[in-house]
């Protein structure tokens, strides 16, 4: 059984079909790149997988558990974390607080525990704090020294890293990365590609939307290509690189009309 | 009996509609909610009162004076309170209008006192229309409200500033890019909404023969409820909302209890927000 199963997912907005029966699997431990021209439906698919977009038809499952009608927080609680295309950080929270919030599902303290503060609450917080520092260390010296800075004061690239740190804090099984290198220079993008492989070493499966071909080709085990809401290719990077169908999709079918 | 209550309701409702339209204009063009609208209505009513009771001017002149005063007030409020907060979202301006409404209401109580001021009657005759008694004043109010709404429609469809307002309401960044003086449009929109509210205030004073410093609070809230009920961005919705609230209020007074009269507007507003947030005639909402 694959970790993630997507079967015939169909999403329509008014008269427009955003996703027309998308199907593919992601195996545990894989890094799958999801590419395609703008408007192909990649982020829509992410929204379906994370529960923010209801599907009109089809189903999705994580390790056999139905995702299709779950609320976003329920899906996150099952172990799917994501980043967003337009970086959605908590602007007035500190870097450290972001990572602590990311660990929400691994802590139990609710209202009564917060007020009464039995011993286990302090232990829970201490453990989260330790893991948070650990996690921030993954990002070299970008985030750890800025632990107490509010997200609003971070540069754009650091905000994107922070989003990933927050997503990782939940110790997900599957991580959905939406254009993690958007707005980064080549040096930063290469570092991001390394980070992505690093994350996989920690046992996390990754589905990655990217426009930067260098990053996708170097980081992915497999690439799925979407165009106009349909999968037009699915295979290892070399096969995609040479695929005419993919080139056409990006170039807009100029050859067909020539 | 029922029918005459309906006529009462339509008359009162048309005045709510004028206030509601003001909210729609402001929200539609500027994406802002104002709590000070009730006080502008009240100031218009007082200007009308002074014109009628103290200076014995004809009611038409009183109406125009009230609308003019509100126009000026609207221009000032927009320039001073809203312009500095252009990029602030809708909460800071909302809070500013709360402050303004407190100031205006308290100043009115200080200057005018809290008691009711009598407004002389205009058109005391009643006529029989289709078997029911209708006062000439009611017909005048209905006609006036209708005329103002029509004039507004004309302004929006056929004048340069009107088209600019509609463009700004659709997308103020695009309008700006196309050369529309968005600052001026906002200013005109606010002033226009204010003068319509004041028109309602003057006519309410004449209809009920009284004005008082705190009359703006409930009227503003009810007009707002009518606007929400009809659809925050829909002018016909605001008119429909106002009329429906007016009629239901009067029927409630007649058949249930007079104390619950004021509940109607808010109950309808809450129900609409829970069941159909875009209101009767509003379009599906984008994220606010």
């Amino acid at each position, binding site marked *: 059984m694959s970790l993630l199963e997507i079967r015939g997912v169909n999403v329509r907005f008014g008269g427009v079909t955003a996703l027309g029966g998308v199907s593919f699997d992601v195996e545990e431990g894989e890094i799958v790149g999801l590419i395609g021209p703008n408007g192909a439906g990649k982020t829509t698919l992410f929204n379906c997988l994370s529960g923010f977009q209801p599907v009109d038809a089809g189903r999705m499952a994580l390790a056999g558990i139905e995702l299709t009608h779950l609320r976003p927080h329920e899906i996150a609680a099952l172990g799917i974390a994501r980043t967003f295309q337009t970086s959605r950080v908590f602007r007035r929270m500190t870097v450290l607080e972001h990572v602590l919030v990311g660990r*929400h599902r691994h802590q139990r303290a609710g209202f009564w525990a917060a007020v009464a503060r039995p011993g286990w609450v302090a232990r829970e917080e201490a453990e989260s704090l330790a893991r948070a520092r650990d996690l921030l260390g993954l990002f070299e010296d970008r985030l750890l020294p800025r632990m107490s800075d509010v997200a609003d004061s971070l540069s754009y690239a650091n905000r994107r890293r922070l989003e990933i740190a927050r997503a990782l804090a939940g110790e997900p099984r599957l991580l959905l990365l939406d254009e993690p290198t958007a707005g980064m220079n080549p040096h930063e993008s290469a570092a991001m590609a390394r980070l992505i492989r690093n994350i996989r070493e920690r046992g996390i499966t990754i589905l990655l939307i990217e426009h930067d071909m260098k990053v996708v080709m170097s980081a992915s085990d497999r690439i799925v290509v979407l165009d106009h809401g349909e999968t037009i290719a699915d295979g290892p990077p070399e096969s995609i690189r040479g695929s005419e169908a993919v080139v056409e999709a990006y170039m807009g079918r100029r050859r067909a009309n020539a | 009996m029922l029918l005459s209550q309906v006529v009462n309701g339509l008359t009162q409702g048309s005045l709510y509609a004028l206030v509601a339209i003001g909210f729609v204009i402001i929200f539609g063009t500027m994406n802002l909610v104002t709590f000070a609208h009730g006080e502008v209505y009240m100031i218009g009513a007082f200007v009308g009162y002074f014109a009628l009771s103290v200076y014995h001017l004809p009611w038409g002149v009183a109406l125009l004076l009230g609308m003019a005063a509100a126009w000026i007030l609207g221009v000032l409020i927009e320039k001073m309170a809203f312009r500095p907060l252009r990029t602030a979202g809708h909460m800071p301006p909302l809070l500013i209008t709360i402050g303004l409404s407190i100031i205006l209401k308290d100043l009115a109580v*200080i200057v005018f006192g809290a008691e009711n001021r009598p407004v002389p009657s205009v058109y005391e005759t009643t006529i029989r229309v289709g078997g029911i008694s209708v006062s000439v004043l009611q017909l005048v109010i209905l006609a006036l409200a209708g005329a103002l709404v029509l004039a507004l429609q004309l302004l929006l469809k056929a004048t340069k500033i009107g088209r600019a307002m509609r463009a700004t309401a659709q997308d103020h960044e695009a309008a700006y890019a196309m050369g529309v003086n968005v600052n001026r449009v906002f200013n005109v929109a606010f002033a226009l909404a204010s003068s319509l509210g004041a028109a309602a205030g003057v006519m309410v004073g004449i209809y009920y023969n009284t004005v008082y410093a705190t009359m703006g609070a409930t009227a503003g809230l009810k007009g707002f409820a009518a606007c929400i009920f009809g659809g925050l961005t829909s002018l016909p919705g605001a008119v429909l909302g106002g009329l429906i609230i007016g009629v239901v209020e009067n029927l409630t007074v007649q058949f249930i209890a007079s104390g619950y009269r004021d509940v109607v507007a808010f109950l309808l507003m809450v129900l609409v927000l829970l069941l159909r947030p875009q209101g009767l005639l509003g379009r599906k909402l984008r994220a606010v």
Partner: protein
Amino acid sequence: MPLHAFVPGRANLRFWLPGVMAVAAVPVVVRSEYVLHVAVAAGIYVILASSLNVTNGYAGLFSFGHAAFYGIGAYTAAILATRLDWPFALTVPGAGVVAAAVGAGLAVPTLRLSGIFLALVTIGFQEIAYLVTLNWIGLTRGPMGIPAVPPPSLLGVEIAGNTGQYYLVLGFDLLTLFVIARIVTSRVGRAFVAIREDEMAAEACAIPTFRVKVLAFVIATFFAGLAGALYAHHARFVSADSFQLDETFVILTMLIVGGMGSLLGPVLGAVLLVVLPEASRFLAEYRGVAYGVVLIAVILLRPEGIAGAPGIIQPLGARIPAEEPAADQAMP
């Protein structure tokens, strides 16, 4: 450390304990019954502003119905005390529970609305609550209000004097602030702020945003009800006119002037805006106007108030700092 980040705890005892002791010493130093009465009022508003801060400040839910819950608490306590002879020790939690129950009842259908629409529903509820209170004569005696509410009493001892009530209210203030401080520095508090900052991202962090928003609302309305009970036993008379939209605006102004999203903010705002109008009697009937002016001035000049967390009511500009190169990047 900035004012808004101040959280009283064992570590910084030397900062806040003297302050609390000074406050506790007030009745010893000041013998005026009038001043003590004002202080009791300030104490009640501290609870109201702090509880409103939970929804409006921390969770970012703009509720405009707080005075309605204050009133529900006051009426509940008054009715329980005058009709059922409940003692103070029961009317106060009873008032809190009833207010919280109504709060939950309102929250569940309405918290899926966002921003301005939530604000409007709470205003609608505020108005409806006022009108129902005024008209449900069988329960509330309508416009006549409920008189002869007994003063507070603990363990059979009546606390009728202003001094005793001062300490009582101070005790409730400390309790309220204690609970709220514990909440906002916990996992729950982080969830509130996450929801305020970006609800979608919060959901993606496995936070059940709807449930958490309802929790914020229930906490806020419980303490509003508590404050209402204190008011009922202090003023010994409740009337619907004290709990209208105007009163919500007063509480909101205190919160904004003091500052939202911090523990100190509502305390400072409440104390300032109760004490200053009393101290400025020379303003006479212009006090209300001054209130409005202060509110506008704060929004325009210093939206975070005296001690509020910056950025809650503020232009969200798109100023993003440039990235400094990392240590491992070679300089050209």
